[in-house]
């Protein structure tokens, strides 16, 4: 019983912790992706 998840709140708690980390990562990745995508645009 100690280790199980029986309420939506506990379920959310577990998932939201990870989600916030992922949100941060995704913003960084979006920045890097944009840089990668547009870096050579000026070369033509």
């Amino acid at each position, binding site marked *: 019983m100690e280790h199980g998840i029986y309420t939506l709140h506990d379920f*959310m708690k577990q998932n*939201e*912790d990870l*989600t*916030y980390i992922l949100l941060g990562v995704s913003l960084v990745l979006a*920045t890097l992706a944009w840089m990668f995508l547009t870096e050579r645009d000026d070369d033509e």
Partner: protein
Amino acid sequence: MPDKNSGRGLFTLTNLVAGIIVIIGLYLIFLRFKGGLGAVTNFSDDYPWGIWKSFFIFIVVPIGAAGYTTGAAVYLFGMEKYHSVVRLAVLIGFLSYCTAAGSLTLLDVGRPERIIMAYPFVVQPGTTSLLFEVALCVVLYITVLLIEFLPFSCEWLGYRKARNWLLKGTLALAIFAVVLSTMHQSTLGAMWTITPAKLHPLWQSPYLPVYFFVSSIFSGLSVLIIMTTICKHFFKHLMNERYLDEDEGVILAFGKGACVAMLGYLTIQVFGLATADKWHYLFSSMYGYWYLLELLGFVALPCLFFAMGCREKNTKLIRWTAVWTLLGIILNRFNVTLLCYNYHLPFSEKYTPTWMEVWILITVVTIVGLVFRFIVTRMPILYDHPDFKSHH
């Protein structure tokens, strides 16, 4: 250079009045810490949030929306020709968010030291909380605004290298600003969805986050129109030619933007009524008429006047309509957070603020006003610094 132009000595009438307000206000703040919140406020167990929360979070944050809306318009939506207002918008945003975070932390919250030290958030982040999301976004967004704001200070102080380095991230910052703003502006509305039975059904809606976000757009645009107008009135001598040239274009473009956002807002409000079948509330009680007044009188009408102003290139009409729109936002946020909250309680049990609450609120606004004047008269907000060529 220009700070001497406005300096008519320290003892002007404005400064005197402001000084009196602030001194009394500081004494009241001292009382708040001496005797607890109960000593100066009417906060109660039924109304744990009074006008401070309503004003400093729910109204000041949409006022600060001027920052991200302008940034998005100029940097992302191709309105580069109105670049002159970006600095003012960033300043408004920065001051608004500092006001929101600062006044809530230092005044409203029971244990300010715990927020300042951030200790509970590190040990036990309440990630399921909508308020946690708001707090996190506000902290991050203040950082973004600070980075956007620092170049002006650098120009003022002559730190060329730092300034140029800071300006490199402009695009990324504009995008972060929009993402973070969308998150917390909408979550401010979502915060009330958790308490479905305490807010009157006409204001309660699963769409609250969308309502709050969309209304923050026209709020921000209106605030920018109002602030440029105020600056043009008081600080015209500081504005450079470029600013004055672009002024009319900015007013027209932003008025048009606000009008479109308001149209969208009106539409989704009606959809909200329809999907939850709330029509019968409209004419069944005072709340119904109050809702109609808010929606028709403070959204639909200003929307129409914005449209007329844009069609007739009547900037004066747009400027006044912006004030009207902002009043509508203030009304809406007070409705959701106080007036229509606990609608089931009889009138005798409702909350009215004490004069001290109001006074402290005015004190904070006064201080922010003074800071705004200090910055505008010193830093290159309304003009380009002669030593630094505009980077666009």
